[in-house]
């Protein structure tokens, strides 16, 4: 997957777990929780959906690395680039 494809994969997950959000104007460098109404349950949803859809296992100590879109794509790139 390219970085753009990874980004779209995250957008797809966000649109499923928080359908009312405006994701078209998402700022990739601003934390998700500062611009979207996400709570801790939603963050766990993102982790679970990444596991289900792409078999990516993210250890709990890394959850904080998925704070912005840019950081999320960078974190996922090593795992997904060969997909």
């Amino acid at each position, binding site marked *: 997957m390219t970085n753009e494809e990874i980004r779209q994969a995250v957008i797809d997950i966000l649109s499923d777990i928080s*359908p*009312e959000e405006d994701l078209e104007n998402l700022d990739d460098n601003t934390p998700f929780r500062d611009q979207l109404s996400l709570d801790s*349950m939603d963050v*766990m*949803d993102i982790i*679970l959906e990444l*596991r*289900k859809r792409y078999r990516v296992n993210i250890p709990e100590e890394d959850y904080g690395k998925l704070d912005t879109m840019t950081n999320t794509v960078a974190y996922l790139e090593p795992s997904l680039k060969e997909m």
Partner: protein
Amino acid sequence: MELPEEQRIVITGIGLTAPNGNSLTDFRSALLTGKSGVQDYEIRYFGKTLAGICHFDALKYQSRKDLRRGTRAGSVAVYCTNEALMDAGIDIKCADRSQVGVFLGITEHGNVETENEIYQISQFGYDCKYWSHHHNPRTVANNPAGEVTLNLGITGPHYTIGAACAAGNAGLIQGVQMLRLRECDLALAGGVSESIHTFGIFAAFAAETALASHRHPAQASRPFDKQRNGIVVSEGGAVYVLERLSDATLRGAKIYGEIIGYAMNSDASDYILPNTERQIECMMKALDKAGLAPNEVDIVSTHATATVQGDIQEIKALRQVFAGCKTTYINNTKSYIGHAMGAAGVLELAGNLPSFEDGVCHPTINVDELDPECEINNLVVNKPQPLGDIRVILNNSFGMVGINSVLIVKKYVH
């Protein structure tokens, strides 16, 4: 002896969703025109069957995110409660929400969500790492009532009452008691069910040879008919706004009726089979609490689910309690909507309450040939029966593991 107004509890709002109507007006109209809500249905593992399916607008009071997070029972409860408050003319934002209680009867809760999660992890080799963190808040037994408090910002007490198919009445009884104890000033009480979304309930009723089948879905639920062959499982809900009479009159509320008597008891005899003697005792106890003789009841809303044995047992009980009561009429609502489980009692009562105004007893439908063992005087069959002045309704709801509930509502006259 009449209770003081602070102890008299009245119904001032009703919100509901039934397979044949999403408001009391539409539901009543369906019951007077013989409109069934039973449809063809298919569910994972079990396959094709029949069910009573509700078609309310779930997005009327919740976001898509709320619906994804919550449960169908929660969604039913949120819809019904908002509709009930609107019907009662109460703006909850202006009320003291710490004094509002939510009390909902359920037959069961959590089976749907557990089956869904097990199905999900089955797609991943049953690896529990794929189990959702939403499972806990979705399956706690208070979920449907709790979702109402989340939706409306209610901070008073909330919980569900697990009472099998006697649960709807039990929810109302809880509301009455909490108001009388002054534990709350407004009770949002009733019952809900999401049971059609669990394959297990269909499989279990089939295993008990108690699941209805019929080539015409609308004719499948046929209490008291000779050809009845079991239960049509349904979803649904009804929430009532309950208030002390003193509060209701103070704000000039519309009053549907007053809950003047109730009773609950246990069979202590069988896991599944009902017990006529205990049903009789429950009805007599409720009548005693209401200070009524049996012949003062105008309509008996039966629990009958269209199982061969259950219908006969209830009719036996009714023949004894209402022997010689020439002006007591008997009807049934499951014949239209199937068995809405935790919502059954409150939907069936709600369907009858407009009779205080229109003077008509709606019939039980789908009786082509009355089972002689279900014959009883004044059973209203297949066409509505105008009765004139209807003042008292007795509502039966019975459930598995031997639980009975009876509620008596009287027309309120200023």
